[in-house]
């Protein structure tokens, strides 16, 4: 029974790592600072939650699990404050977001396109 839970927990940890990787890919693909915050919040919420849930399943019903729950609660309380502070600092210092529809193109192609007046 314990080893089954460990394997399920391991699966959750791997899934969380995959979500964190997706967040990193999003940070590279998205065009400007504000959209990149959205990609990074995948790592903050989905990635961290799945890793901690997996570790809870591996630890079982112990004090360690309770501590992991505390870690999760504090991560969920502090990451939006940090993201908020970053976005607010960028906006109040006059960094304009790029507004409007655009397809995500490959990074090297994006560098070649000329920047419009709304570019940061």
């Amino acid at each position, binding site marked *: 029974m314990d080893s089954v839970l460990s394997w399920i927990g391991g699966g959750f940890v791997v899934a969380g790592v995959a979500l964190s990787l997706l967040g990193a890919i999003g940070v590279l693909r998205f065009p400007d600072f504000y959209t990149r915050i959205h990609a990074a919040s995948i790592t903050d919420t989905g990635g961290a939650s799945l890793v901690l849930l997996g570790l809870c399943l591996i630890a079982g019903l112990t004090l360690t699990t309770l501590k992991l729950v505390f870690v999760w609660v504090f991560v969920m309380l502090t990451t939006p404050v940090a993201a*908020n502070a970053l*976005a607010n600092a960028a906006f109040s210092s006059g960094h304009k977001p790029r507004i409007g529809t655009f397809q995500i193109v490959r990074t090297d192609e994006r560098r070649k396109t000329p920047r419009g007046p709304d570019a940061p």
Partner: protein
Amino acid sequence: MTYLPGLILALAAFWFALSGETAPLFLMLGALSVLLTLWLVARLKIIDRDASPYHHAPNILVYGGWLLVEIVKANLAVIRRILGPTHAIDPVMVNVTTTARTNLGKALFANSITLTPGTVTVDVDGDRLKVHALVRETSTAQSFAPMDRKAASAADGRKS
């Protein structure tokens, strides 16, 4: 002063959950750290206010469960945008008005928006929030209304 026993109990329980020690020396050190925290809280004069939102705790727990579902849905939506070459992104700045009256309610609503992938609160001014969203069609000013109603009633103690 009515909040003081609750605060002592919460601090002691939190200390024991983190340490798990029962030896007299450790219990004494734990009591000392609880006293030190109480002294700091008393110096800040916040024992009666935001330091002890216990009466909101059940409502906020229910709200947290609802928010978790929203976070999962938003995670999937943003992941589709990250991976898919067919999904264009459409960033937009939305002005959202909150019905929350207390600072706790406004903070809960603003942080819920930021915690949900795809939307970030950029600025809070009175009851107006400036929100940067990744996708225009799913982030109109009305689409934040359910979250605002639930956050406000959870934190301010009003019925939705």
